């Protein structure tokens, strides 16, 4: 194949530079980052050698927040300002939080997402998560010795759209370029599958601190295809602690506890739970704020009795996922355990009994998710040659529109492979109706009231017609991050009135902008300088990408077309020498537009090559 090589000084067809990318497991209890170094994934440790960062943030009135062990150590003395398990509050409204009474925080009932009142003022769960991510970003950049190109952040597979959006916003606030939101069980499967060279159908049972996921995947020559996922976004190890907590209160007759005592008792409950994984009984001793001492012993049998129904609750999604995938128990080749809570013997036993086989536990259940995310980050950053791994994930919950009578019209069913686009036509119900409002919901129930409300929007400018004559096509699109966008368009009149809706349950763009500027004040960064820096990074990435595309597929262009693209690249290169962010952006947009036809031809070529390369005989037949 004849290649048209271009080589101009300063942008020769990219010497393959290793880009720094990390996988981050943003967990309920703890978080961690991992990266791929010389071909293998490893966790990134702090200066003290610890990989796990407790997901705890303490706020002050007069100094920046403290994250991690230092915060966790004082959670019993300063419980109101020390936020733990914030993941359980992500994308949640005040009224969604059933366990509010057992949380030692001052929750603020704000429109959209709940907030926490701290010494530093009201903080959204997104901001708290951003503080955790910022710490991991600093740790990673310190350890890797440079700025990160991007990060893959993991989320529970069963997270809904609001929770995913909140996670992405948190990463943005922390100054991270999000390469992908990746489902935790899928990340674990990558780390596991690659480690073991596995082929066949596997179930990943992931019980974290606050969430439970069950994913069924088919592994076949490097393709990880999620067949079905199910779970419970409000069930995790924390709930087991709560049961012990409740038991102690019942045993001792203690009633109202102060926030400090609440934290003390919860921490003691947690220690007892962990001790019971290795011993038949565990001591549970603490001294309350008023000097009263408690000294009890918790037997494993009692603990298992207290939590039996929680364990059973995890088996329901297992059954559901198998059914959705159209599989029976015999089809499952192996079961992988992920999440610290799967260390509990009662869990291991229940899983073994349910699937009829001993689950696989040879990778550290606390690290496996971050390791898998690191591998995906390495691929998406462009450090690996293509061809070795591909993920095909699914949407965990059905997405739909409210119709007359409060019923849900399903548009995208659960377990649809991503990315997915589906459209549905609606019509007006009154003569001369010129506007129509839509309510986007997520969930499996028929009644809208039982589903999660994601967004509301209105389509205006519909030409007046008799009822039922207008045809309004509503298009749902879910991208590879599992994030939804919705648009609506009136079709019959040929007139286009389109709106694009990004579900923004929780934070508005304005709020994010404000938080960004506030967080930069902490970091003493200039917002404008930041914006220029971002545009320059993007421009560099784009120039490199186009140069590589020209080097590989330049023969798809005529001499004039090639020249036109060269001209746009030169203009962008020149703009990057200045300091005008808007000009860089404008040149970037032009280059993007100018390479559209080229992109189309390259896609066609890769499809043709894929089909003819492997199966030419079969196609010709």
């Amino acid at each position, binding site marked *: 194949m004849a290649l048209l090589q271009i080589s101009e000084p300063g942008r020769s067809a990219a010497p393959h530079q290793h880009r720094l990318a990390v996988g981050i497991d943003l967990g309920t209890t703890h978080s961690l980052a991992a990266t791929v170094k010389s071909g293998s994934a490893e966790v990134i440790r702090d200066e003290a050698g610890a990989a796990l960062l407790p997901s705890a943030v303490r706020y002050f009135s007069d100094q920046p927040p403290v994250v991690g062990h230092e915060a966790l150590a004082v959670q019993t003395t300063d419980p109101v300002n020390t936020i733990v398990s914030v993941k359980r509050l992500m994308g949640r409204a005040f009224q969604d939080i059933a366990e509010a009474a057992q949380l030692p925080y001052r929750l603020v009932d704000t429109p959209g997402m709940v907030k926490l009142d701290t010494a530093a003022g009201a903080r959204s769960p997104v901001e708290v998560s951003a503080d955790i991510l910022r710490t991991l970003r600093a740790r990673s950049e310190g350890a890797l010795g440079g700025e990160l190109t991007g990060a893959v952040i993991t989320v529970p597979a069963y997270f809904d759209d609001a929770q995913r959006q909140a996670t992405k916003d948190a990463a943005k606030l922390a100054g991270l370029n999000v*390469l*992908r939101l990746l489902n935790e069980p899928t990340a674990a499967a990558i780390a596991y599958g690659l480690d073991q060279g596995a082929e066949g159908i596997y179930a990943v049972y992931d019980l974290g601190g606050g969430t439970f996921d069950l994913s069924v995947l088919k592994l*076949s*020559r490097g*393709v990880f*295809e999620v067949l079905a996922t199910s779970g419970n976004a409000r069930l995790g190890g924390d709930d087991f602690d709560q049961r012990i907590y409740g038991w102690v209160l019942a045993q001792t007759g203690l009633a109202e506890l102060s926030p400090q005592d609440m934290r003390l008792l919860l921490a003691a409950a947690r220690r007892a739970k962990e001790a019971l994984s290795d011993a038949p009984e565990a001591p549970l001793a603490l001294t309350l704020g008023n000097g009263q001492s408690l000294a009890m012993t918790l037997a494993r049998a009692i603990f298992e009795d207290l939590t039996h129904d929680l364990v059973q609750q995890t088996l329901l999604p297992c059954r559901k996922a198998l*059914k959705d995938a159209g599989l029976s128990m015999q089809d499952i080749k192996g079961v992988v355990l992920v999440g610290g809570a799967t260390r509990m013997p009662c869990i291991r036993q229940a899983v073994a009994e349910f699937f009829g086989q001993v689950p696989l536990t040879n990778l550290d259940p606390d690290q496996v998710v971050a390791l898998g995310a690191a591998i995906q980050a390495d*691929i*998406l*950053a*462009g450090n690996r040659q*293509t*061809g070795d791994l*591909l*993920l*095909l994930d699914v949407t965990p919950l059905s997405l739909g529109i409210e119709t007359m009578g409060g019923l849900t019209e399903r548009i995208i069913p659960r377990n*649809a*492979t*991503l*990315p*997915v*686009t*589906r459209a549905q036509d609606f019509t007006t119900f009154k003569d001369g109706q010129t506007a129509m409002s839509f309510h986007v919901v997520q969930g499996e129930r028929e009644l809208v009231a039982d589903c999660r409300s994601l967004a509301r929007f209105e389509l205006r400018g519909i030409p007046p017609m008799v009822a039922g004559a207008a045809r309004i096509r509503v298009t749902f*699109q879910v*991208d*590879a991050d599992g994030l939804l966008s919705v648009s609506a368009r009136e079709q019959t009149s040929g007139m286009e009135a389109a709106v694009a809706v990004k579900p923004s349950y929780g934070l508005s763009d304005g709020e994010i902008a404000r938080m960004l500027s506030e967080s930069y004040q902490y970091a003493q960064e200039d917002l404008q300088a930041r914006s220029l820096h971002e545009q320059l990074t993007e421009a560099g*990435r*784009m120039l*490199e*990408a*186009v140069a*590589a*595309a020209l080097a590989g597929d330049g023969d798809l262009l005529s001499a004039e077309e090639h020249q036109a693209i060269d001209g746009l690249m030169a203009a962008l290169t020149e703009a990057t020498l200045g300091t005008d962010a808007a000009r860089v952006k404008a040149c970037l947009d032009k*280059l*993007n*537009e100018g*390479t*559209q036809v080229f*992109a*189309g031809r*390259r*896609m*066609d070529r*890769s*499809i*043709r*090559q*894929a*089909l003819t390369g*492997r*199966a030419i005989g*079969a*196609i010709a037949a």
Partner: protein
Amino acid sequence: MIDFSQNHLDLFGLPARFDVDVATLEERYRTLQSAIHPDRHATAPETQRRLAAQWAGQVNEAYRVLKSPLERGRYLLSLQGVDALAPTQTSMPAEFLMQQMEWREELAEARGDYAALSRLEQALQREHHGLLNALSCQLDELGHYEVAAETLRKLKFIARLEEEVSEAFEAL
């Protein structure tokens, strides 16, 4: 040149037949996704990434349709201009309507009875299998599209009933 209006079978390089080799279909799906998935173009210019996302969505949709015999049959008929499941298409032979009622009664009586549910499940599976064979013959060999459309409607009914039986099993 490959375009979005291309039919699902062409996209997968498969002949326009109902009888599809499932292993080949799965293999082609993985091959196509391996070439066009946005992750494969993660470092490409933005326009190309967007195009890749559109293509990946298209391939997913085609795969979903071709994988399910019912959807595949319906799709092949739509290529012949026959809308098998249109709301206006309600005609059904009298004997099938009788059979429907009998099955419904059987299900009502079998609720809570494992052995009876199993018997009904097996009967429905046999019927399902027979209808699929008939559909294959009507579509691929005879080209009797209106007859095939009726077979498809029967299949749809059987599938719904099978779903109800499986729910009854879960309720045991």
